[in-house]
């Protein structure tokens, strides 16, 4: 799908950023699982396996562009530049967290970084992202709005209403479906009529693209064109990224209850980080040693983030009733 011409023009710095960001996400998610196992954290939706999807897209975004996520959103946040210290503190319910401990794993938000929030209600953020696109258009900026949602969410009416709105108004929105093949235990092929999410774009007269979501370079290429279109006022794009979640849906859910080991191995063999690493070494963008250095840097960052989170205080108890409304001086 991706052409070597485009790939060949990606700056080395960008390639390294994509690799490093994927590794940082993975280390973060591994630590989140450890925190969950130790009981300090009561459960998360792991993004391990899906790192390439937001990284390839966010590589084209600026701080003033917006990303909106779903319940499985740590990778969206990190790809958009949200601080891992503050994220880990948030997961641990601490006042130093992105949301002062009030939102937790499913609601991480950081307006300074253009992260307009993860969201626990499936499909709920898709219209919001459409409104962000509307805002950019009316305010005459060239900002872009990107919403990530799952294959399960693609069955909500909210997607269809939003695609139509964004199409008739030519809004700068990227609708990015992370098709990881399951919604909880329900397989994609059962719940998605027509067998494709991307195909639905045709009904709204907008581009619909299916892409290997385990290839960050493919994601980068598809994202580049969609972001270009959006900034140029040409309207929305629907992207279906084929990906896979390596772990269960949430917490300790065991995915072998609804999928085979062979299937898992098939997808894990196409791991986004391993493939990028190979690409970088084979094309001499980096040596194994340099990449190991990056890996170590990411591990250290997550160790530091965990320490920051653990050492941080819980919110003061009166925060229970603050932030319900805006406080006027």
């Amino acid at each position: 799908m991706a052409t070597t011409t485009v790939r060949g023009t990606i700056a080395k710095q960008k390639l390294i950023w994509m690799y490093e960001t994927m590794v940082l996400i993975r280390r973060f998610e591994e630590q989140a699982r450890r925190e969950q196992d130790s009981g300090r954290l009561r459960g998360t939706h792991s993004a391990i396996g899906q790192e390439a999807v937001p990284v390839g897209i966010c590589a084209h975004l600026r701080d003033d562009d917006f990303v909106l996520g779903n319940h499985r959103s740590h990778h969206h946040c990190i790809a958009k530049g949200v601080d891992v210290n503050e994220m880990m503190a948030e997961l641990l319910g601490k006042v130093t967290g992105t949301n002062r401990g009030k939102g937790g794993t499913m609601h991480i938000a950081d307006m300074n970084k253009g992260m307009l929030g993860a969201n626990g209600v499936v499909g709920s953020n898709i219209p919001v992202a459409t409104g962000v696109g509307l805002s950019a258009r009316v305010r005459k900026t060239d900002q872009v709005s990107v919403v990530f949602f799952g294959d399960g969410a693609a069955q909500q009416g909210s997607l269809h209403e939003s695609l139509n709105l964004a199409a008739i108004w030519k809004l700068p929105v990227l609708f990015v479906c992370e098709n990881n093949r399951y919604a909880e235990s329900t397989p994609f092929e059962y719940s998605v009529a027509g067998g494709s999410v991307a195909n639905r774009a045709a009904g709204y007269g907008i581009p619909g693209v299916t892409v290997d979501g385990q290839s960050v370079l493919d994601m980068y290429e598809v994202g580049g064109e969609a972001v270009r279109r959006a900034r140029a006022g040409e309207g929305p794009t629907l992207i279906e990224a084929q990906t896979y979640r390596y772990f269960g849906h949430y917490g300790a859910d065991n995915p072998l209850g609804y999928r085979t080991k062979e299937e898992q191995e098939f997808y894990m063999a196409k791991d986004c980080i391993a493939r990028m690493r190979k690409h970088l070494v084979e094309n001499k963008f980096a040596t194994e040693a340099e990449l190991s250095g990056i890996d170590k840097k990411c591990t250290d960052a997550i160790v530091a983030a965990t320490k920051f989170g653990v050492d941080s205080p819980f919110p003061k108890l009166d925060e229970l009733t603050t932030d319900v409304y805006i406080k006027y001086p």
Partner: protein
Amino acid sequence: MTTATKPQQATRRLTYVQAMNEVLAQEMERDPTVIVMGEDVAGGAGRKQFDEAWGGPFKLTQGLYKKFGPERVRDTPIAEAGFIGAGVGAAATGLRPVVDLMFVGFIGVCADQIFNNAAKMHYMFGGKVKLPLTIFTATGAGVGSAAQHSETLYALFAHIPGLKCVAPSNPYNAKGLMAAAIRDDDPVIVFNHKLLMGGVGGGQHVPKEPYTIPIGKANVAREGTDVTLVGISYTTYNCLQAADELARQGYSAEVIDLLSVSPMDDEAILNSVRKTKKIVIVDEDYPRCSVASDISALVAEEAFDVLDAPPKRLMAPHASVPYSPVLEDLFIPSKEKIVEAALGVLQ
């Protein structure tokens, strides 16, 4: 009773989840028009080797798919407006659908179907259509799920004429209320508190034979003379704990387990208050325009003359449910707070 020769009193200790699971199977057995739908109510849909991979997010529907098959037990895509609306249409035309709205906060996705269709069709059509629809949904804070997955929202539903709402507090009444809900020809919402489904309160004797508990009737869960504590679902459990503590301090608390949020058993509440002359209403819902406020108004209007103290509402704050455990712990009216509130009206 104590002799070794006498067969043990048939005690069937069931958890809340087991009791719900049993009643679903019994009602499906009894009435072939009962169908069950929802996300992952079976799980692993369409894959033979993984039949019934989940059995429902809280395992309430486990075993139904294997027993009753794919025609009557349906996994749905994530499309609440679609499948709850489909439940309305199916109910209007001869089925008795039981539909899972996984968490009550997801009402936002499908409110039109419930509030504008399910609740109103019987009335709008001059009584010419029946809507035997049951919607069950998980409620409550306490497990770190934050603002969108932890509400109770009783009042939102109870506000709408045409909907019946029940909130079981233990395995025994869960079974009886669910049976009543399924057999009822009006739409009924069944609120299942996550902490009760998670095992708080423990197992309890639940008869095997099907039985119903009438919708619209409260239960005196504990008799007492000094103060009335009204609980709803999980807060009933906390009220009972608080009553134990109050007894240790020399006060006799009566606990009314509301069970039905709508219609509400006004008489049971008034009867108790006429005896105790004091009332604390314990509700995990948001305080404004709440069930507790409604009960408080009822008592003020109908039993003002007998009251020794103003009716006291003990509720969640007017705030969304926080994630941080230290804040979330403050959200639910705890046993300690109930004791404190009761002592407040007693002294």
